[in-house]
């Protein structure tokens, strides 16, 4: 996984629970990287899952909530880091459609080896959009959080739910975004 995710997760945890808590997580996790993360590096996915697992355990929250919160928080961070062209969107649906055709193309230019999720759009009306979230990392809750972060950015209010979810025994994850 790209280093930016780890760096942002570090900032997220420190912002919420302080530097000491992050320091204790690293102490306990004994990661191969020793927690030395840079945005230009690439790290094992497992390191993130280990850190999330420890946060869940220590703060007594669910993994779903942890992923969701991080997703919602990280959107603006990623958005600020994104190339200028990505800032022109004013609508959640418009942005979601552009993710694959524009944002991911830009990401690939800088990180050719980045493994990115794919969206398969299934149905769309003026205020609802459903798509199939495909990623071997199965971070569908993180994705839900990101969509919320996106809506905060555009000033829209949305409800995000999963009509199908691999964590609930379904064969795939389908996210439905409804503007309210």
């Amino acid at each position, binding site marked *: 996984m790209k280093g930016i995710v780890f760096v942002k997760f570090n900032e997220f945890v420190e912002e919420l629970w302080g*530097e*000491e808590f*992050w*320091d204790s997580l*690293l102490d306990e996790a004994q990661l191969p990287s*020793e*927690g*030395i*993360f*840079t*945005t*230009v*590096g690439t790290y094992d996915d497992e390191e993130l899952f280990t850190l999330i697992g420890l946060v869940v355990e220590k703060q007594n929250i669910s993994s779903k909530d942890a992923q969701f919160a991080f997703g919602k928080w990280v959107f603006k961070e990623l958005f600020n880091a994104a190339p200028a062209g990505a800032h022109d969107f004013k609508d959640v649906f418009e942005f979601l459609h552009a993710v694959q055709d524009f944002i991911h193309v830009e990401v690939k230019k800088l990180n050719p080896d980045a493994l990115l999720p794919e969206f398969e759009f299934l149905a769309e009306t003026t205020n609802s959009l459903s798509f199939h979230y495909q990623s071997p990392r199965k971070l569908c809750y993180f994705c839900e959080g990101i969509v919320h972060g996106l809506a905060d950015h555009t000033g829209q209010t949305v409800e995000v739910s999963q009509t199908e979810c691999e964590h609930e025994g379904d064969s795939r994850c389908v996210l439905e975004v409804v503007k309210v």
Partner: protein
Amino acid sequence: MTLSKEELEKRVSVLERKALREKKARQLAENQLEKYSLDIYEANQSLKAALAGSEQKQLELEYLAQTSNNVASEIPLKDMVSNIVELTAEFCSANYGLFIISEEGQWLTEKSPKVWSSQQGWQENNELKESIVGLLPVSDTNLAESWRSAQIDTPPLDENTPVNSIFYTSFEWSGNKIGWLAFLRPDTELQQELEVILNTAKEHLVSGIRRRLTDIRILQRNVQLQDSLSSLEKARRQLIQSEKMASLGQLAAGVAHEINNPIAFIRSNLEVLQDYLNDYKLLTSQMQASFKKDNTLEVSQFTEICKKVDLEYIEEDSEDLLQSNIEGLDRVKEIVDNLKGFSHSSDETLVETSLTKCIQAALKIAGNMFKYEHKVVNNVTTECPPILGNFGQLQQVFVNLFVNAAHAMEKGGLLTIDFTKIKEGVVVHVKDSGSGMDEETVSQLFTPFFTTKPVGIGTGLGLSVSYAILEAHGAQVTVDSKLNVGTTFNIKFPQID
């Protein structure tokens, strides 16, 4: 908020660890950046190399394409080679380029010896050309398989142009000659990649030269063939004319006889008319004597004088004699006209021609070959359809056939000329009741110089010439012959389209 010492120490150690991580992260990031820089540099280098390579490839392709265009074009051979010298010199960054031809190890010098130079293009410079040719192993009569190169210790003439090596090749030219291409370059050696391209270009050039030389040979051969054809045509016309004259020679005795006959009776008639004139003179002198004596002429006296010279008969007979002479002279004129028409060498155009008239004209000339013991039956009436033909030549054919028939019927016989209208045209049958021929003779009938006639009679060309004439008319000849029964020639003429 105040912190206890313990808490402070803990806080410091957390921050120290954080600072250490940040420091290490920074180092990692810097290392990564350096690695990226290096990667970018290397990528740039390989891109530059690839670009240079593709530019070189493009140049090579352009060179080969232009060479091929020249080879495939129709420009003259020497121009083509000159263009290729120029293209090759430019492609290899050569200072000089030239083309020469050698034969048996000797350079064949030209009237205007030209050398291509990068600065002046093609220029006439014998001295320079000689000194460059001096660098070539011209005496070597083995063809170079590829390009050869050699270093030059003493550069030729122009000291301002740096020249360090020569590369050259040789190839087959027309005959036993060898063509040479040579180039002078500032580089000391010929790179292998360049040599591969040059070899390909050379193969193109050699095949182009071969094709052009073959074209030239074919052209020359064509001209020769056309010359032969026209002299053959001329010979054929002469042969037809000679054969006609020869057959005229054979006919001469008969023709003379034919002319002699009327001349003889005209002369005899004139002698009689001379006598009649004397009788008239007598009549007038007696009448004048009577006038002088009596100043008058009695009717009875006049009648007596007239009776004495038989005036009535003289008048009657004179008319007959004069008429007979006119007819005799007409006959002579007709024979002479026919001979004139026959011997005249006409052009060979085929026009609508009446076989009826042609056969009649031929009979007029050859007719006297047939004596009292012969009978000639001509059934070719005006119903015989016209054909596309040459009157003079067809007359010659029929005269030839009639003369042959007469020769075959020395002791008399019957000559029958008939025709049959068929779908494709008309067949004329010339049938004699003569000696006939065996199969062997029939098979050689149209062979030139084949004759069964004794020496002095016939040339042996008559039928072969006739055959050639009929062939030109698109006519087909068949012969039916039986020994001691007779021979029939069947000539099938095609219908007029």
